[in-house]
């Protein structure tokens, strides 16, 4: 930048800084609000005016994980005293933890949905990235008749609206019994992520000089060995970035999960909004579930920050 600035330039610079700060507040505000709500006592979640300063609690998370029922009268003092700290928090909210006949604490629907999300997202990511990487290598290094058309075909499968694909898939899954199964969702998410993974990995592999492999081939490596020992290590960063993108996509997916699952294999995205339901929802519990669900994505976004542009443009725009 020029060393000399006119008064007008200085003013404009400061004004834009202030505007940026305002923009930051607007963009992070909703995320802050859902996070804050996740740590509020229930009576402060829906106050007018909104409560910004409060003593954070973790009772919403206890409630999120356990199955509860309302109680009319407070528990007897000795019962209350004997209860562990987390059960006391449930009692404080006018509810009790539901226990089975043997006295085991019953879990709410949330932990299993979270686990389902994890299983489906991780498995489909592994599949999509491994298949995507080798296919990208094939497209990057070998002559293929109609290469652009194939690549367009691959990308176009990603652009299909989920609901459009879901109608026939639902019928087919129903015929073979894959509805509401982990495998069914894993297949759908793998197909959805595969095209993305091919495009992104092709960009990364195109950047690895071909000479590396040629040298290895001259040294007596087979093409396979060259791929596994030279290309894969060079592409490690790209593979990691692609994997994180695929994970986030599968983790966040809603429409397929809503249509294809209802209980056994249901993932978190259709489950969390379904808690709102009718009546007066406990927003602190919903916010706690949302917070836990968003946390991995937020962490991954920071890890991915240098690859976001590339990922979002299917590898077409590189920095």
């Amino acid at each position, binding site marked *: 930048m020029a060393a000399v600035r006119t008064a007008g330039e200085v003013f404009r610079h400061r004004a834009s800084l202030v505007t940026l700060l305002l923009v930051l507040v607007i963009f992070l505000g909703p995320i802050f609000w859902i996070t804050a709500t996740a740590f509020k006592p229930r009576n402060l979640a829906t106050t007018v005016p909104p409560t910004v300063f409060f003593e954070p609690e973790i009772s919403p998370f206890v409630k999120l994980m356990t199955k509860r029922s309302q109680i009319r009268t407070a528990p007897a003092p000795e019962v209350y005293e004997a209860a562990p700290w987390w059960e006391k928090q449930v009692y404080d909210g006018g509810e009790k933890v539901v226990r089975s006949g043997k006295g085991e604490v019953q879990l709410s629907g949330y932990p299993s949905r979270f686990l389902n999300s994890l299983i489906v997202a991780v498995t489909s990511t592994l599949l999509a990235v491994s298949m995507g990487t080798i296919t990208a*290598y094939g497209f990057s290094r070998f002559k293929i008749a109609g290469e652009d058309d194939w690549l367009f075909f691959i990308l176009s499968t990603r652009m299909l609206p989920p609901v459009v694909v879901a*109608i026939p898939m*639902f019928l087919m899954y129903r015929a073979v019994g894959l509805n509401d199964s982990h495998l069914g969702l894993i297949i759908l998410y793998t197909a959805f992520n595969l095209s993305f993974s091919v495009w992104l990995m092709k960009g990364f592999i195109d950047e690895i000089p071909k000479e590396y492999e040629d040298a290895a081939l001259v040294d007596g490596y087979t093409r396979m060995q060259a791929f596994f020992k030279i290309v894969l290590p060079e592409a490690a960063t790209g593979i990691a970035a692609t994997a994180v993108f695929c994970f986030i996509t599968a983790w966040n997916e809603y429409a397929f999960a809503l249509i294809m699952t209802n209980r056994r294999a249901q993932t978190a995205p259709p489950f969390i*909004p379904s808690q709102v339901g009718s009546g007066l929802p406990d927003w602190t519990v919903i916010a706690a579930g949302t917070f836990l669900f968003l946390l991995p*994505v937020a962490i991954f*976004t920071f890890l991915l920050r240098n690859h976001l542009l590339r990922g979002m443009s299917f590898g077409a725009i590189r920095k």
Partner: protein
Amino acid sequence: MRLSFPRPFPDNQNPEAILANPSLAPDGSAPRSRGLSDLAIRNLFIIPTIIFLIVFNIFPLIYSLGYSFTDFRASTNAPANFVGLDNYRALLSDPFIWKNFTITAKYVIVSVTGQVVVGFGVAMLLNRDIPFKGLLTTLLLLPMMLSMAVVGLFWKLLYDPNFGVINYALGLGNFEWLADPDMALYAIAIADIWMWSPFVMLLSLAGLSAVPKHLYEAAAIDRASGLYTFFRITLPLVAPILMIAVIFRTMEAFKTFDIAYILASQPTTEVISIRLFKMAFQEWQTGMSCALAYIVLIMVLAITNIYVKYLNKVKER
């Protein structure tokens, strides 16, 4: 009676047979001595992916193309009757479907325009020397990485007419964002703009940083006005990348389902994906919904085609 011709080569000298099965070669060695041939590796690496995509994306679509010519209902056991083009004819002459398309078009225009204005604007603000620029950019990009369904959910909390933060912050009292039929679509678009402006910002930043500095210096020497510099230098040079953002967001907004489905259930917010979902999985008009799916599909593929053309154009630069 079968005629048999003398074969030109015995098996172990026939070049084609040797290519197909290298162990037939006279000295027993393969044409390529080490490992799999490049051709074999190419096929091994590419064909499984193509087959996977055909089986799980193209085959279902062929399946639903078949159903789109029938009156099949997945909720009953009644066999499907072939009805020819009746479904398509009914859909294209149904004023309610056109209403859904109109709503979708309105949503796409409001939402994408908003994203471009906000996203490009913020990118212009960010495209200068500022402290913590990297961190600031990453924080601003956070919304677009989140789940649309969950974003829809927490905007519901923000929009609440009684205790919502938005009404409080703007001093709107008990304004009904989502229950008001005229406002609901805009409310959804605002949440979408919040979520996806960062995407436009990200691409615009890439475009802006690629504009050569010397062009601005030359403009400054010529005493060009800020407006002139913007329209004659900045915008034309950023346009190709901005175009990619616009086409991609148009396509995604056209397909919008999650956020609209969760935020509101007004007839005025029934975008085409929601109509399709309801037709297929609530009214169980399977045959009809397959036909509608095809109409939507053709539109999406047309936009995808344009998108890929632009993508390849930018790639070549």
